[in-house]
């Protein structure tokens, strides 16, 4: 139910922006919902709380998804979402830690967020802080060499307080990830790099819950959760369509998408009653 509202936030933000990246935001919406409403130790009233868990959106273009989750969680008003990408809005096209409450790292250039997450996890260990660091990467992002530099660092320094999540929605700008530059086999790669590897359906809260619990229990090794998802998930005409990577819905598309998500929300409410 919350995830449907995060998805509505994604549509509202990108529609308001007349730009932005709905596809990868929607594929990660369930994960972002789980992180911000269940998994992470955070306080929306105190976004700079020193001992909070950290989240780094390494796939920074999914900012609409992150913003929608943060707004819904109470870090800032949901009514600001349509100002995404507008001149003078604090909701920059890619996350800015200095303007958006709840954003722990400025990202956007792919491959860089994971390094910052490693730095946070290593710093937490040096500081004796009991907190966890989460970083969400795209499957296309894994083509960046820096990702693997960082992966080496994470395993070398036994960053068991670090949990990577890879959003395998299978599509990048130029086409299917497997055809543009195939990073597979991912399980083998991350295992060889020294990670505790788990594979889940990224739209199953039960599987996400179990994977995060196992990651938390893992000692001496960093974790990666390879999350298989549908790009554009939840909005019928956006699902598995590469064209919706970086395009905003027009008025008619926005109305249709919101109607679909409203129906989804109603189904959930009916189940709850």
């Amino acid at each position, binding site marked *: 139910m919350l995830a449907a509202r995060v998805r509505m936030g994604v549509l509202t933000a990108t529609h308001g922006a007349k730009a932005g990246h709905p596809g990868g935001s929607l594929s990660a919406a369930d994960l972002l919902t789980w992180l911000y409403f269940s998994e992470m130790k955070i306080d929306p009233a105190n976004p700079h709380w*020193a001992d909070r868990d*950290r989240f*780094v959106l390494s796939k920074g273009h999914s900012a609409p998804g992150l913003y929608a989750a943060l707004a819904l969680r109470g870090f800032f008003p949901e009514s600001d979402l349509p100002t995404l990408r507008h001149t003078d809005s604090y909701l920059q096209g890619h996350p*800015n*830690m*200095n303007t958006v409450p709840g954003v*722990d*790292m*400025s990202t*956007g*250039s792919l*491959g*860089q*967020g*994971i*390094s*910052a*997450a*490693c*730095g*946070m*996890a*290593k*710093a*937490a260990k*040096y*500081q004796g*802080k009991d907190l966890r660091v989460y970083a969400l990467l795209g499957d296309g992002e894994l083509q960046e*060499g*820096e990702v693997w*530099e*960082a992966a*080496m*660092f994470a395993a*070398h*320094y036994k960053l068991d307080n670090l949990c990577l999540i890879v959003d395998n929605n299978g599509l990048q700008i130029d086409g299917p990830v497997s055809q543009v530059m195939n990073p597979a086999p991912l399980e083998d790669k991350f295992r060889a790099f020294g990670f505790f590897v788990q594979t889940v359906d990224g739209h199953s809260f039960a599987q996400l819950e179990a994977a995060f619990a196992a990651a938390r229990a893992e000692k001496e090794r960093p974790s990666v959760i390879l999350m298989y998802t549908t790009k554009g998930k939840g909005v019928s005409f956006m699902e598995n369509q590469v064209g919706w990577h970086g395009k905003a819905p027009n008025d008619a598309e926005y109305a249709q998408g919101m109607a679909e998500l409203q129906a989804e929300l109603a189904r959930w409410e009916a189940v709850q009653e």
Partner: protein
Amino acid sequence: MSDVKKIATRDSYGAALVELGAAHPDLVVLDADLAAATKTGVFKKAFPERHFDCGIAEQNMIGVAAGMAAMGLVPFASSFAMFAAGRAFEQVRNSVGYPRLNVKIGATHGGISVGEDGASHQCCEDFALMRSIPGMVVLCPSDDVEAKAAVKAAYEHEGPVYLRFGRLAVPVIHDEANYKFEIGKGETLREGSDVALIATGLMTAEALGAAEQLAAEGISARVINLCSIKPLDTELVLKAAAECGHIVTCEEHSVIGGLGEAVCAAIAEAGLACKVKRVGVNDEFGHSGPAAELLAQFGLSADNIARQAKALL
């Protein structure tokens, strides 16, 4: 002058880190498999629990430093200038500069005085690259005393700082007892009225030598040392332009995008009539050879500074 003490500023960097580290537990050091050369190895020996080798992966190292700064630590990330400013440029821009994170980049082996390693390791573009990042402070100390003070000032400054150190031992020209360092402030080392030699890094000692040569020929040369490439001490530069009317800039860096261009821009925008000659590495790559020979060959010498000053007058 032959008995002048010589110390490489990279050695000063290592020593300053140890001294600061003792007082500040939030100071951590990162290196990329060059700790022996960058001299962070000295810090590693003193504080092994907060010296983190990142391996030969400079891009990740800068990102890790950014993450550590976001957690409240003050990381000094070290490598050769070529790799810290060059290879990891975009990480410095996007992960450090844009979020204004409190990362200090300790870049050693700047310029052609790297010597025998040759052009691949002789970074003469770092001022240009680092100056262009909004909010980045760029420092290039001239000797041991200034280098140690610059490291301390960098630690105390809240925000990103790029520090450039050299491989070659250079004369100690400052008196530690009377020395005061401030980011954004230059210093007049020698008064003069015919021409001002505005220098940074190891070229400051050369400029002092040039001023001696010029004095012997009856030319009064002012020598200004600018460790702070950015922010630039515009006031001091404009004063020299107005009073001397002739300026020779001296830097172990490309004449494109470095101190010389910063000085020219300040003078031009102020509308002052002042002739300027930029002494630096012209639009070319370096090559292998002993540092002293290369400096002479590329005109990064007192002789050439004096020659260029005379040509200007």
